[in-house]
């Protein structure tokens, strides 16, 4: 193998101090994960037990991102459910019966807890057990919480996958399990790379419930997403063992991730080299092209998906960016530790947030690129700060070698665009208090 990325200037960030502030958070709740999970698991339906707000969130998040055939819905709690006039469990049975009668193709039903259902302590675990018995063997009913009082954005996927682990059958087979919902094309690439290394792997979540995936003490697992802390714990409880590694973003991350697996499965260095050499070279070339606009530029991460630390590692080490602040909703060192080891020192590493104070820091730093949620992006753009919406990072194929250039491209595009546009005072005039303005009507043409 040729030139490895330069070693970190220090020992990395694993033991760096973490800024923790408590104030308003500006993040999605875990329900949002349903938007991609329902596409991934093709025979699953996600029934949120919650309020109109939950339904509106799913619709609004989906409206911005996709608007296709949904396999999710909301059982909206009404006044009578709260006042105890209707037994909520009976009501839920009724709604689920109605749903399953209409959709006989459903094999897995997830009852998804929300803020209101958690607060009124509606026992969805009990409901799921009862319904599994009632609808066996055609439908398996599981439950998890996507509530905003317990989960942040991608933690919803974590809670969902963790709920599937206890019901997986036991197996003693020595096997590799890849954990995390990936776009199909990316998942296939990963499996093919591993196959060339002589390692066969299974994936969680499987596209369908009837796959014969089992788990046991001879199962080794590699995470493909950094937000899977509970799933990690659930798998360890079943005796499976985690293969810690940097996450497979960029050429370096992917190589390190594959190497960690190769090491566990005794893959010969020559075989490893043969399997990875060509895609590594392609990835390096693609990154080099896409990251031209990124070199020497500063980046600021607001907390969002927990992808922040691995991405900061990729952007600083492989694209030549300089991180000003890396904020994450949670920092689980057992999972992102290997990425932290590689991450050059950053001025601020933060966990959780007080969004107003963080915005103050961001405005003071005036980074070249800010990674943030949809609620903050346009307001920051209007202040002349280029932004990248974080949500795109969980919706776009960005893992492994063949997407490494695309990943760099996601970050370079806003910067290139800001350079390209030749609009007079292209930053929207900050004085304007609402779009359009009273004075902006079609006065031309008026007599």
């Amino acid at each position, binding site marked *: 193998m040729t030139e490895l990325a330069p070693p970190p200037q220090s020992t990395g960030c694993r033991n760096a101090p973490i800024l923790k502030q408590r104030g*308003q*958070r*500006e*993040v*999605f709740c875990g329900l*949002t994960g349903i938007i991609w999970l329902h596409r991934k698991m093709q025979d699953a339906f996600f029934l949120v037990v919650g*309020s*109109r*707000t939950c*339904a*509106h*969130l799913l619709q*609004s*998040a989906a*409206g911005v991102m996709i*608007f296709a*055939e*949904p*396999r999710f*819905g*909301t*059982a*909206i*709690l*009404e006044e009578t*459910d*709260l006042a105890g006039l*209707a037994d*909520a469990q009976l009501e839920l049975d009724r*709604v689920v019966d109605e*749903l399953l009668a*209409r*959709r*006989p*193709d459903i094999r897995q039903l997830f009852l998804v807890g929300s*803020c209101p259902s958690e*607060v009124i302590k509606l026992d969805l675990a009990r409901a799921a057990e009862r319904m599994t018995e009632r609808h066996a063997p055609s439908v398996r009913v599981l439950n998890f919480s996507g*509530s*905003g*009082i317990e989960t942040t954005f991608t933690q919803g996927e974590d809670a969902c996958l963790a709920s599937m682990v206890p019901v997986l059958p036991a197996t003693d087979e020595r096997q590799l399990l890849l954990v995390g919902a990936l776009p199909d094309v990316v998942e296939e690439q990963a499996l093919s790379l591993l196959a060339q290394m002589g390692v066969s792997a299974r994936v969680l979540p499987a596209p369908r419930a009837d796959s014969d995936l089992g788990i046991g003490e001879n199962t080794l697992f590699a995470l493909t997403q950094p937000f899977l802390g509970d799933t990690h714990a659930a798998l360890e409880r079943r005796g499976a063992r985690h293969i810690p590694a940097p996450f497979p973003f960029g050429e370096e991350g992917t190589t390190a991730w594959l190497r960690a697996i190769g090491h566990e499965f005794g893959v010969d260095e020559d075989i490893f080299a043969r399997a990875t050499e060509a895609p590594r070279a392609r990835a390096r070339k693609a990154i080099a092209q896409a990251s031209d606009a990124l070199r020497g530029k500063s980046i600021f991460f607001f907390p969002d998906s927990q992808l922040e630390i691995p991405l900061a590692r990729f952007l600083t080490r492989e694209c030549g960016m300089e991180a000003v602040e890396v904020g994450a909703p949670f920092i689980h060192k057992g999972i992102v530790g290997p990425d932290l080891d590689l991450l050059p020192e950053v001025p601020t590493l933060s966990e959780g947030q007080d969004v*107003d104070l963080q915005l103050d820091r961001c405005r003071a730093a005036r980074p070249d690129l800010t990674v943030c949620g*949809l*609620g*903050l*992006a*346009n*307001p920051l753009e*209007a202040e002349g700060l280029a932004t990248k919406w974080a949500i795109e990072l969980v919706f776009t194929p960005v893992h492994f070698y063949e997407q490494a250039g695309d990943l760099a491209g996601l970050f370079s595009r806003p910067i290139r665009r800001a350079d390209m546009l030749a609009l007079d005072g292209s930053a*929207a005039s*900050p004085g*304007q*208090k609402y*779009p*359009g303005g*009273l004075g*902006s*009507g*079609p006065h031309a*043409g008026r*007599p």
Partner: protein
Amino acid sequence: MKLTVWTYEGPPHVGAMRVATGMKGLHYVLHAPQGDTYADLLFTMIERRDHRPPVTYTTFQARDLGSDTADLFKKTLQDTYERFQPEALIVGASCTAELIQDDPGGMAENIGLPVPTIPLELPSYQRKENFGADETFFQIVKALARPAERTAQISANLIGPTALGFRHRDDITEVITLLSDMGISVNVVAPMTASPSDIARMGAAHFNVLMYPETAESAARWMERELGQPYTKTVPIGVGATRDFVAEVAKIAEVAPYLDESRLRLPWYSKSVDSTYLTGKRVFIFGDGTHAMAAARVARDEMGFEVVGLGCYNRELARSLRKLAKAYGVEATITDDYLEVERVIEALQPEMILGTQMERHIGKRLGIPCAVISAPVHVQDFPARYSPQMGIEGANVLFDTWVHPLVMGLEEHLLHMFRDDFEFHDAAGPSHHGGHAPAARGDGGAAPRPAASPRDISDPEKTGSEVGGDVIWLSDAEKELKKIPFFVRGKARRNTETFATMKGVSEISVDTLYEAKAHYAR
């Protein structure tokens, strides 16, 4: 408990946000968990606002429950006041905070901030977004507006426009023009554009223009009672309604009616020969009550369509909509259940839908063209260009918007004549839509790419042939049916089946088809 796939309205606190975000100098402190902050994106992404909504959320977590959520609210309120220094605050709870009963209003009163702090009681498990907006605006007006000496020049307040409203931005401009042409000045536009101090001087206007009953009717009634200001009942959407509005304003303001129609194009466009093909197009109308009712009048009287169904999702306007539907001789569909609306549309088989973004999806699935006339909104509903619904330009916009999805006049005939042309065949849809033509299928039945309905993956796809109730299509008749252009095929199928049932015929032959055609000829 109610199973819901898509919703027409958000929760009531989103209505409150629409009011707060439209205003200046007002801040909303919302007791809510972190997930509720998603609502910011409605404004920053869908409406492309360049500022964060003036809303601070307490974002309490599970571990705060039962211990210090109340303290968290108090601290958030204090910090928010210090940071943003608003002229006034509104405080309230979202659905989850409503359950923990911390009483934000009471706490705010105890803190005693030096600016007006207005408590909101928005029952999340009973009411919805429009109620939330209407109630919030009402509470703000009630708290701040005081009787005042009338302005020397006759003036009006425009009330109802909010953030995230369907074309509210441009309607304001259009209504201001209508009034100023009559020598009437605008005192305050609210909630959109107004600050709390503007609200305080609303009493100086001579009357109110109620632009959107959905969001400002309660305030209009209160101001009529307490400030002695009459308000307009006509919503100026369409030519006739705009003329009526001008007459109503003239009467209230005691000025001569005047309407500059020099830029009005709808009447001539509608009379011009190319529009002949619009005659009797069967349209189904659904939206918020105000826009749906206005659309019904325009559709029938100004476009020459036949209104075959009319409905709204907000029960607040159910009564007046029912009355109008009766006058149009159609069934009123009052529901917020998207699947029910879909069933009604499927049964009616209209040639066009005037609806919301949700009906646009139903139309896509069923291969029926749709023009959007009402909220709920989508990023497309905030066009860069000037595109009002109200007044003179609004009428012009309606003509263009409603005609655009349809197959154009002569094209209808060409499709009929050259239906087997490989490029110009009927399944391709209107030629001016290029590759994005509605995916109409041969029999006018379900479209091949289903969207947005739980039934989509469960129902076996309709066979589309043979069965129509108890009536059977003979294969010759079925073949003949396929020769009819797709945009009328669904109707032809349905009419023929109805005709056959009526005649007690159990098999449909080519003759039955043409007898039915003659029967329904218009």
